């Protein structure tokens, strides 16, 4: 049996061509945004397709980096993403592992306890009062703690744990290892793909989340990147909703952001988060490679 590197079947060739076409299709919005962000807004507009700028101009980036507290917001977002992701992954594991034991008494009751919380919420007012009474209003913890336990992730991870061969685990328990040791020494190494997935999901969630910042953070020095992105992209709507049209003077800082500035804001805001992907990709790909190399 030959290892397939030399012989590429027709099936695989067709597949690769389809994937290339597909890649171009999904790359397009990204590319167009990049081009717009480096364009002169007087030469190019958001209309039509823009595949190459007349000249590459970094003005928009200079503007965005000089805008208000964007650097501070960047730092804040990184902090919340790192701390928040760590908390989510930890809590997810702590809940998922016990719940993956079929013989855990009251397992279903506890699962339902989590599920109910997924579906019934009291709405924004009691949430706000809670955060206020806990003294978390206007602190970074208000961005991190309320979302630290995610039922969706717990169920996914629990199911993954359940597919792991029980044999190894039981023999370890027989040898006197406690559950915590089993979790850290046996289960986690076997679960890298799912931990990487949930870590990625959590990081992306924290990176993109703005609603908690919108309602809980008043101090500009604690705001997050997505709030500024939101300001930039929707500033127009603000000035339309009020009488921005008719005033001038104060309140008139709600200018229409030029298309290149909007595009640059988008590029800046998604840069770091898409860069982490290649670093964790190996956890998904390695397994696949083993699988298919032998195929």
């Amino acid at each position, binding site marked *: 049996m030959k290892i397939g590197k030399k012989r590429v079947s027709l099936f695989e060739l067709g597949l690769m061509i389809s994937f290339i076409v597909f890649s171009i299709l999904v790359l397009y919005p990204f590319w167009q945004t990049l081009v717009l962000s480096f364009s002169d807004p007087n030469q190019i507009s958001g209309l039509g397709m823009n595949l190459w700028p007349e000249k590459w101009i970094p003005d928009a980036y200079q503007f965005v980096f000089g805008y208000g507290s964007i650097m501070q917001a960047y730092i804040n977002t990184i902090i919340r993403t790192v701390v928040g992701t760590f908390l989510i992954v930890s809590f997810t594991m702590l809940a998922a592992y016990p719940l993956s034991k079929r013989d855990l008494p009251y397992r279903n009751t506890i699962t339902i306890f989590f599920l109910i919380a997924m579906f019934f919420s009291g709405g924004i*007012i009691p949430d706000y*009062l809670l955060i206020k009474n806990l003294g978390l209003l206007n602190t970074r913890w208000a961005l991190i703690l309320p979302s630290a336990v995610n039922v969706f992730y717990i169920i996914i991870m629990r199911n993954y744990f359940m597919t792991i061969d029980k044999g190894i685990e039981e023999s370890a328990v027989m040898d006197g290892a406690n559950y915590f040791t089993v979790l850290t020494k046996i289960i986690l190494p076997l679960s890298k793909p799912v931990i990487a997935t949930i870590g990625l999901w959590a990081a992306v969630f924290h990176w993109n989340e703005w609603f908690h910042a919108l309602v809980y953070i008043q101090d500009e020095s604690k705001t997050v990147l997505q709030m500024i992105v939101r300001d930039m992209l929707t500033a127009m709507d603000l000035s339309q909703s009020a009488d921005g049209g008719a005033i001038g003077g104060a309140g008139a800082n709600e*200018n229409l952001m030029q298309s290149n500035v909007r595009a640059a804001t988008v590029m800046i805001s998604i840069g770091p988060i898409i860069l982490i992907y290649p670093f964790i990709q190996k956890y998904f790909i390695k397994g696949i490679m083993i699988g298919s190399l032998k195929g």
Partner: protein
Amino acid sequence: MMKRYVMGALLSATLVVAGCSSEAGKKEGAEVDVAQLPEAGDFSEKLTLNLSGSITRGKVEDDNYVQKRLEEQFNIKIENTKLDTWNAEQVNLMVASGDLPDTFAFTAGGQTSQQLYDSGLTRTIPKEMLEKYAPRYMKMLEENQPGPILNLKKGTDNEYLQLVGQYSHVYGLPWGPTLRLDWLENLGIEPPGEMTQVGPSGGREKIFYTDAAYTLDELEEILTAFTFDDPDGNGKNDTYGISPANNNLNWAQSLLGAFGLGSGYNFLEDGELVKTEISQKYKEFLKTMAKWYDMGLIDPEFTTIDEKTSWEKYKQGNIGYYIAQPSYLAMDDWAKGRAPQNIVENPQSTAKILATGPEIGPDGNQGVRAYLPVVNLADSFYVSKDVTDEELARILQIFDYINHDNDARWTLFGEVGEHSDWEGEPNKSALKVRPEFAKEEGNSGFWAYNFRTYDKERVQWINSEYTLKLKNEFYARDDIQEKMLIRPYKWDMLNETDLKELENRYSGQLNTIVDEFRMKAIVGEVDIDKEWDKYVKNYLKNGGEQMIEELDKAPIVEDLLKGE
């Protein structure tokens, strides 16, 4: 067992959490003995006040310039409220949780001042105290009838639920039509009257205005020529007359005016009170638009693009007609990027713009919907229920000074020559804050404590001289205002009806019905004559009827304006 414990803990904990806001705290208006309170100007007792602004972004820094001066002048300690008043979610939550500063001017949508008072969040402001501590404010109310009878607590004639802002900056016609003057010239079409240049430079040299107007029929001919006669001379049939937007009705303000209509307003049609959107005249308007769409004068893409995209299309130079505010024509900075100023921004652009009077309709109607329905008073300044009479006395004096004494210009712009400079001729142009100071809030504290209220003089500080000139000579000339401002027939200015509640409940339904029908009618998806009755019935059935009945109880706007 566990379950019961959980439930018990849950209940007790929620009670603790909720306890803080369950107080109704309604203060029954004990008579205020104004004579007992300190004289105006007596600031001997030091007070601490938690103040907030009305258009602030929460960027105010502690111990800023304005704060220090105010603290000294009024012997107070100011606690700043760092709240982005443009953030509706945060503002609404602050109101919903009853967590409010001593004074606030953010409008939590959908709540009337009566509702806020009934909820126990605000206190009333006695007229006697206003007369004693805020005489300039009271004078302003007298001059803007029916000012003194607005916002009174139900059943009283001397207790105000809120203070109100003076909106001199929205006087005159808010909108007017413009046409591509270079296209008119290429096609050999005469302007309707004598033209004046808006200004000598900065793109203004390419913008002209005339108070004369075309009739709707003439406009139709012009738009036809714009669409089919290659007005830009590029040899391609790629131009359109008019480019509406799918997310608002700004584009139609003067066209509706030609039928005597103001969107969202009401009037008497054949002796019966009717809302604009279900009137016969509105039907005529729709039929005209449908005809134009059918003729190809309206950019067919308008159904999928919003106003902002429509501005970008205009900038590409394929559209001949666009609606504009005076500030757009004056090339004011804040309107950058909006049509039609965006096409002349570029120094190389050869486009020229002509602003005309609103089109004259088939019955001789001509006009534009007034920005505010009755009088140029709007917005709300509230005082929290926790504020004592002594505190209120001080608050009112500060309010009256910073908002109604024009010596207090420093609270907005600092000292001219030190913090800011005139943009052009002193006292006739806008003031610009020097770059080393925060334009608003921040370390300077400008605008941080002011209410959104502008008399004529203050309007000069914020508007460019070209905007003012345009307004004085055309858009807000007395005879133009008299003739062309469209106001509703009835309006619930005194909050006597339940319209606000009905609106909260039905506006979603009614707007959907109206928007859907308008769009379908214009693009010809429905036959207006055939479907009209069904549409009106649908409108009335889904809350429209109740709203009109309620509206009928409201006072007549003309009477209000006379102060009756």
